């Protein structure tokens, strides 16, 4: 029998009730907080009741649901993530354009190339900032580079972003120098371009590599959409700078291709779940549907406004603004539509019953965890 020092112990009375508590009721003078969940920081034992917010039950439902409650957890990402999708796509496309200008463009495109390089670097840095802001523990952002996990698009993407930033940084800082350093800078730019191309599209893979029904259904369309939209955004931003001749033609060409590809991908995405229309429902109805349609309309308007590339500066600028607005709207629509899709249990259930779950696999995956042959840095 151990003796405990006699001291006033908080007693379960009205005063204790009114005090803020962590919802554990473990008195530290009596018990040690060493459980696996003891480290969980709690400001209030009243977190979001999102779990209990039911969706409206539908008479047309083809499957039962559990009180209309979501089956999945919706993505926890904040606004900085769609912002990053926009910025990253723009930056990646700009880097690719810059690298292409360097390799194949000749002296006429040198200014453009510099601009692209800077745009790429700024985008990389800004994008990193946006992503770090979304982290639950931003101070631990460097853990993203703790391992390289090929199965995770976020891991791959973190490395792409980091390397792209380094490459673009080298390109910006060293590209103008002579000699070895200059060569290194130019290699950096070229590498940055390659990485940038991946940067623009990997986010589509990142979204698709989740359980969110809409994103998983659109796993082919999303990378293409983001690449196209990135190209369109890069072209639009570059068009805001005064330039003439070859640059203008190139940016116009680049941006227009991008818009066409983006629009095509969006249309294809709406048809990505023919057997389970519930999956793509967020693109058709509600606020997310409106946002999606706005993205479509703005991008199309931007394409139309920029025409064949020989309009006035003013028209160019309007087209650029429309395109940028469209790209941003599209990103927001995709993310919010995804969240809504995750919240809708019927999307998951009906999608999987219609064969969009494991039934789609041509062969069953190996039931052992993926082996990471590449080194995992601890």
């Amino acid at each position, binding site marked *: 029998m151990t003796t405990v020092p006699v001291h006033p112990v908080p007693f379960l009375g009205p005063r204790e009730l009114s005090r803020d508590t962590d919802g554990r009721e473990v008195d530290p003078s009596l018990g040690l907080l060493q459980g696996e969940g003891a480290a969980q920081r*709690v400001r209030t034992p009243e977190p979001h009741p999102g779990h209990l917010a039911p969706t409206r039950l539908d008479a047309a439902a083809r499957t039962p649901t559990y*009180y209309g409650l979501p089956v*999945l957890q919706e993505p926890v990402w904040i606004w900085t993530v769609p912002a990053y999708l926009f910025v990253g796509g723009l930056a990646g496309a700009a880097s690719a354009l810059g690298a292409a200008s360097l390799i194949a463009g000749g002296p006429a*495109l040198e200014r453009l190339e510099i601009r692209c390089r800077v745009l790429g670097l700024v985008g990389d840095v800004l994008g990193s900032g946006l992503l770090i802001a979304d982290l639950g523990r931003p101070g631990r952002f460097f853990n993203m580079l703790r391992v390289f996990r090929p199965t*995770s698009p*976020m891991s791959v993407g973190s490395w792409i972003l980091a390397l792209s930033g380094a490459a673009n940084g080298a390109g910006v800082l060293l590209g103008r120098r002579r000699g070895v350093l200059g060569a290194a800078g130019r290699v950096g730019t070229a590498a940055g371009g390659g990485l940038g191309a991946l940067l623009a599209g990997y986010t589509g893979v990142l979204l698709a590599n989740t359980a969110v029904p809409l994103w998983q259904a659109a796993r082919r369309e999303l990378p293409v959409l983001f690449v196209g939209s990135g190209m369109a955004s890069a072209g639009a931003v570059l068009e805001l700078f005064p330039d003439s001749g070859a640059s203008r033609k190139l940016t116009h060409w680049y941006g227009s291709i991008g818009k066409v590809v983006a629009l095509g991908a969006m249309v294809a995405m709406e048809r990505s779940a023919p057997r389970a229309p519930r999956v793509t429902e967020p693109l058709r109805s509600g606020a997310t549907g409106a946002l999606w349609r706005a993205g479509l309309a703005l991008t199309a308007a931007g394409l139309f406004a920029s025409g064949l590339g020989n309009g006035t500066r003013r028209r160019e600028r309007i087209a650029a603004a429309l395109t940028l607005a469209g790209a941003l709207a599209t990103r927001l629509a995709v993310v919010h539509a995804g969240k809504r899709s995750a919240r809708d249990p019927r999307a998951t259930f009906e999608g999987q019953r219609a064969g969009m779950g*494991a039934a789609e696999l041509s062969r069953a*995956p190996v039931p052992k965890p993926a082996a990471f042959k590449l080194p995992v840095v601890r």
Partner: protein
Amino acid sequence: MTAAKGFFTDTSLCIGCKACEVACKQWNQLPADGLHFSGNSYDNTGHLGASTWRHVAFVEQTLPAALGAENDSSVGMRWLMESDVCKHCQRAGCLEACPTGAIIRTEFDSVYVQPDVCNGCGYCVAACPFGVIDRRDDDGRAWKCTLCYDRLSDGMTPACAKSCPTESIQFGDVEELRVRAEGRLAQLEQRGVRGAQLYGQDARSQPGTGGLNAFFLLLDEPEVYNLPPDPVVPTVKGRESWTFAGLAAAGMFLTAVAGAVLARSRSIR
């Protein structure tokens, strides 16, 4: 490596007492999730989450006479109860999505989140086909059932299985549990219980996840319990997506090069 450990949750034995929910919270010293009256039968918890690692689901059903009402009162009534938990999938969506390597597979073949590594990127949250893992806003990190890794390391039974009075939650070697589950299903079918099914007991029955180390015996379709009928770890569809990303990237680059060449040639002329 020791044998794979897991749970066989036999919902035909669950009396809905929620001892598992409380034992889990108490052992792991998890905070509360707030007082929210849901009106959904006796389930006021709603779903698994960052601070709820065992959740008991309740479904009240009135049975049509055709299904042979379980208890023959003048109205057929059934109350399904199920203790939900992290499935510790063989192919785990959260593990394969985690970019920091915080989520690992332990020597017990369970899936474990290291809270000192996790930086709260939230990717695992979106990648779980069962909606298990979640990020707590106050805390920032992702949390889920650890299969009582601390208890297993000392040769003990996980808290939920220990506290379950009717042994609805059975803990043991996954291989052995599978055999037991098949036997139990056969037994129920013999007794005339219709609609009973195993869920996720092996890779053949659930190819999308490779089988679950924490699998179930259900008395109705998975959707009734808020379980996906055909879950798949998103990574296995990743190749397709990467292919298109690669093609798009290549297309982007080629477009840029072609455009640059065209623009250059135009400018020379």
